[in-house]
């Protein structure tokens, strides 16, 4: 029994494990071979390999230090401060969980939501405006601001579902285009008199009022805030919605075979619109949390690449809520650690994008990983299937 379940677990973990290994190995090669010190030793093979190994090793050590625990910080400050990197990881992962859930939920309804970026932006705009414009009591203010962001983003997202349902336009194209529109929209918004911070001419909005901020969880020195609980609750909500409710059942039925669902009387336009509205709300909540939890003021770059990383997060998490949470934490760690790696070892942060892309590429191409490692075909479920523009 025990051995059986262990080997089952081993099988389940084998492909992702190999994909990770392959991605980190390739990244290591890139880090080593782009280093001038390493390249200068190309004359003597032994020295060269040693130096390459050391360079990549140092980079990865810094990556760990910057994402989980830094012993140096415990010496200079206190033991608690040593977890500063972990706090950073979680701060970055928080909006990523929410945008990742947005993409993952869409996958379940058979939709590819590339639009989390735009939805995030509208969430941030809504939360920011309610956050700095109104004066409301504690708690209520945070909730009102978050709801405002979610509502805006939900309309922005829901429009995609509605357009797809009514005109058959492909959501990938719609969301790509709408991301750009949202990107320009926030630039314009920040120039308007409503959003321009008094005394400033650069695109930054006023800070949200204290009453609209999410509380810090571990004192003023660590940035970790209550947003992570919101994100985890959202993951739980998505899981519950998909597996326990009739709406989730409809979503999954349309996602797996829209034609059969339609024939059985399920309203596909409703499902498409509702899915995208909820997805928009989730990504918008991500934007709201980013404003209310860590940035406190809307700026042109508020969305960073949270909406785009969300796609890799959801893909890595196999579109499952729990998987998405873990994937977001991993990518949060990569980003947080990447900063330390950049400052400590001079390896540019951008390399984590490469690692991220490679991991997802290998996860999405199980046949490729099997081919590389000469594995036999397992009876595991196929990846997310390709449907093309017309499907």
């Amino acid at each position, binding site marked *: 029994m025990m051995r059986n379940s262990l080997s089952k677990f081993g099988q389940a973990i084998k492909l992702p494990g190999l994909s990770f290994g392959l991605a980190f190995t390739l990244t290591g090669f890139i880090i080593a071979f782009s280093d001038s010190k390493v390249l200068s030793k190309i004359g003597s093979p032994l020295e060269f390999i040693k130096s390459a190994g050391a360079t990549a090793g140092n980079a990865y050590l810094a990556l760990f230090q910057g994402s989980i625990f830094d012993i140096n910080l415990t010496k200079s400050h206190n033991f608690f401060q040593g977890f500063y990197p972990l706090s950073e990881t979680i701060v970055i992962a928080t909006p990523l969980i929410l945008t990742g859930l947005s993409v993952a939920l869409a996958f379940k309804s058979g939709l590819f939501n590339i639009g989390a970026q735009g939805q995030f932006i509208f969430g941030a705009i809504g939360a920011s405006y309610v956050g700095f414009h109104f004066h409301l009591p504690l708690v209520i203010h945070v909730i009102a601001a978050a709801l405002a962001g979610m509502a805006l983003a939900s309309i922005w997202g829901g429009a995609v579902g509605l357009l797809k349902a009514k005109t058959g336009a*492909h959501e990938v194209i*719609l969301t790509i285009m709408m991301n750009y529109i949202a990107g320009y929209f926030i630039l314009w918004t920040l120039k308007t008199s409503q959003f321009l911070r008094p005394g400033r001419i650069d695109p930054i909005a006023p800070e949200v009022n204290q009453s609209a901020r999410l509380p810090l969880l571990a004192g003023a020195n660590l940035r970790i805030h209550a947003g992570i609980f919101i994100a985890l609750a959202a993951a739980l909500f998505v899981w519950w919605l998909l597996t326990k409710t009739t709406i989730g059942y409809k979503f999954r039925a349309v996602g797996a075979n829209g034609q059969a669902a339609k024939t059985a009387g399920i309203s596909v336009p409703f499902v498409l619109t509702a899915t995208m509205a909820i997805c928009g709300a989730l990504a918008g909540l991500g934007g709201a949390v980013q404003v209310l939890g860590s940035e406190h003021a809307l700026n042109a770059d508020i969305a960073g690449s949270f909406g785009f990383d969300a796609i890799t997060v959801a893909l890595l998490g196999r579109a499952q809520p729990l998987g998405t949470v873990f994937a977001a934490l991993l990518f949060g760690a990569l980003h947080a650690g990447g900063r330390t790696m950049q400052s400590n070892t001079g390896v540019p942060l951008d390399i984590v994008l490469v690692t991220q892309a490679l991991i997802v590429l290998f996860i999405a*191409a199980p*046949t490729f990983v099997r081919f590389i490692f000469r594995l036999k075909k397992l009876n595991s479920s196929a990846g997310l299937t390709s449907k093309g523009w017309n499907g």
Partner: protein
Amino acid sequence: MSEIRSSVEKRRLRGVVVITLLSSLSFLYFGFISPGKNKTTFGFVLNNEWVLIKEWIIASATGVKIFSGISLVASVLAILAYRKRRQIVFPVGVATFGILMSFITWAASGKFIPLTGLLQGALLLAVPLIFGSMSGLICERSGVINIAIEGQLLASAFVSGVVASLTHKTIWGLIAAPIAGAAISFLLATFAIKFSVDQVILGFVLNVLVIGLTDFLYKKLLVPYQSTWNTAPTFGKIELPVLSKIPVLGPIFFSQSIVVYIMFAIVASITFALFKTKWGLRTRAIGEHPTAADTVGIDVNKLRFKNVIIAGLIAGVGGAYYTVGSVGAFGKEMTAGAGFIALAALIFGKWSPIGAVFAALLFGFADNLQSTLTIIGVSIPSEFMLMVPYIATIIAVTGLVGRVRAPAADGVPYLRGGAH
């Protein structure tokens, strides 16, 4: 007339209604409600071409009435054509032109608009879009979705910049760029065709990979060692004798760098090859019905692979335009989403080469008009002008103007003997 109009008819009707409304709106708003108070000057001379008219000065309000009048007449013709069930593309095109010109005449009241320069700039901004959309066209006509155009452009811009810097020769940059584009294509083709990975996801991931890699190498090599790694020379303008002297058209089309001439050649060749040659017939066949192509002895996946590589080569030349074709030095993420606008142009152009070229030119024009208006000091929020390509694409895919149909097998991996 039947009770229920078909969806195509509905879309045609919607197109006619929208253009008529816009024409009337432009006539009323720009002409009467908020007319320009001054004269608008259009400049026609850019270089040393022969001069036909140097300038055309007209009172803004009068100009608007003329151009809006043209678009109103064209709208009426479109309505007539629709009722006679004829093509409405031409009158709608003329009406669009009229509305655009009304807008420019109105916005530039009291200012000088270098019309030839505006158009030349539009073409230049469209160059990478056209290369990119041709890459997408060849992939998607073969049945492989190409979202990785951005990655192809960026990778080849990077490689051509670096190679030209290291060799001090523009030509080596131009030769290296298509190879870089093809390398991205090789990944796309391998994973999409051999390993049947979802093509949208794949293209997306490849873009992230290229952005990460070029950002990384840019910081690691191009910034610290700029003098050796990032000082690419650029191609000069080649003025074609006589042709470049033609007023207006000369400076726009015949006084350009080699990359632009290559673009003309590629667009012409693709248009011919796709519809008139064996390769084109087979390419369209595998994009529409791969099983049928297979049964007549066409190796579907081999041709798809080949075509995706060709697409990479073409996008690669477009990438070279960013560096050796224009500014020389490579900049971080310098393609700035052009690959996605190219995709938009492809869709807006209904997967036809000529359509895609016109769409790309339109997008380039909107972009350049925006910056021209900013430069001459017209206060229109540039953000909204910049949204034009994206809004236009949404309008296109939601069927407001005409029907858009992708190749039937676009994005579907071909596996033989799926049924038994």
